[in-house]
């Protein structure tokens, strides 16, 4: 398939990134290789969207630091970047809304781009092309296909997919919207478990074509929880997170017993919201 026929994809990863680890970064690389290899997609960008402080997860340190660490981690990446919109919102934002925000941003950007998009060749040639277009407007072959807007897809690990089953954590209409309007790319070791999970959910099953399961053969157990635990115990996290992130954590003494106690006893924002919605 020619490049012009491929769907352009933007991978969006939401999460605490508390802290960001090499595993998070690997998700992007694996997803990009997978999607590009299907021949139908072309991954053009990766976005890391750290969750806002209002999420109120236990041990969640300030978004300010988490954003900086993610930026340090992606300093050497040519295509993955950090977006702070979600983290700057005063209230917690549902993932479906974050997806919508980024999709709309792409659509808005695309309109501007199409109006100003530079034509290949010299100005003289541009005029000629425009004239040709008016003359041959009926011959669609000569008319270049308008560039489709890139599609945002949610990038995640199996833990997020399976969290769909946690009572009151996700709104069912959000889950439907995520898989129907956007799509999911899920990196997992246990492909069979993930497939079974999809099979057992009507909403997921209906849109299974929009859920891409990417098998990662090597076990990569680097989770933020383990990183924080190692830090509390004075153990090295070298080579588990990018060097710049490790240095930043050390310099600011970000993770210790105190930081892990943050938000203890506080109800997680999505759960709080479901209760509020139910009562309203």
């Amino acid at each position, binding site marked *: 398939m020619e490049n012009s026929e491929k769907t352009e994809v933007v991978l969006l990863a939401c999460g605490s990134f508390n802290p960001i680890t*090499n595993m998070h970064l*690997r998700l992007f690389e694996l997803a990009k290789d997978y999607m590009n290899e299907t021949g139908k997609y072309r991954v053009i960008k990766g976005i890391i969207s750290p969750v806002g402080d209002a999420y109120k997860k236990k041990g969640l340190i300030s978004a300010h630091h988490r954003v900086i660490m993610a930026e340090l981690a992606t300093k050497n990446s040519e295509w993955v970047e950090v977006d702070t919109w979600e983290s700057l919102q005063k209230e917690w934002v549902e993932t479906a809304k974050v997806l919508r925000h980024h999709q709309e941003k792409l659509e808005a950007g695309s309109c501007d781009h199409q109006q100003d998009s530079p034509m290949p060749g010299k100005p003289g040639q541009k005029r000629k092309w425009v004239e040709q277009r008016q003359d041959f407007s009926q011959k669609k072959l000569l008319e270049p296909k308008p560039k489709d807007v890139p599609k945002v897809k949610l990038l995640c690990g199996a833990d997020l997919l399976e969290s769909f089953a946690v009572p009151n954590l996700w709104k069912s209409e959000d889950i439907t919207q995520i898989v129907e309007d956007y799509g999911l790319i899920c990196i997992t070791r246990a492909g069979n478990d993930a497939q079974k999970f999809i099979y057992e959910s009507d909403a997921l099953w209906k849109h299974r074509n929009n859920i891409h399961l990417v098998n990662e053969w090597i076990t990569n*157990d*680097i989770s933020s929880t383990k990183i924080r635990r190692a830090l509390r115990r004075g153990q090295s996290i070298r080579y588990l997170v990018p060097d710049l992130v490790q240095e930043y954590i050390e310099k600011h003494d970000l993770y210790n017993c105190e930081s892990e106690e943050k938000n203890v006893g506080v109800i997680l924002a999505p759960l709080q919201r479901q209760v509020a919605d139910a009562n309203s």
Partner: protein
Amino acid sequence: MYQVIGGIISPVNDGYRKQDLVAAHHRVAMARLALQTSDWVQVDPWESEQVQWMETVKVLRHHHSELLRSLPQTEGQDHGRARSVAPTAVPELKLLCGADVLKTFQTPNLWKDAHIQEIVEKFGVVCVSRTGHNPKEYISGSPILHRYQHNIHLVREPVQNELSSTYIRRALSQGRSVKYLLPDAVISYIKDHNLYTRDSSWKGSSTQRNEGKTD
């Protein structure tokens, strides 16, 4: 009880002739790049620069004697003729390996028994766990290892990571990204020198010579 003062990576000699083994000078260069930011681990090319492959115990002996030579000499009544160093001040050199290497001690004819004994008796082993391996079993299953088990330190990796060079080489030959699995500097080096591409895999002898080596 212990204080680790240094780490040495000693890439194997090309004479080992393991399949897909790229030239030693590349492997040394890549290790050096990977260790650029480490303040305590370094590469030592001595083993790779020898004329032929040599048994691990000989490498241990070499580095141990180098360690002793580099110690500050005490010039007492002997006026420097004899080196007298307090026993507690002598650093110990231990073989660091994955559990897969410990398992290879069992492979018939791969290691000389005398060497295994010297390694665990005179030096010591620090063995990091690896998925699918049970080092305690290997130790209890071998009389030599069992006898010197106090000198075999089993390290449990709190964060399991099944990364292996074999996986990396395979991913590279398939054109897949290995970013964040290797230091960026090493990835650039591999790219610049066209290593581990689909065509460049060297079909070396697949029969292993003495001793198992990890990736």
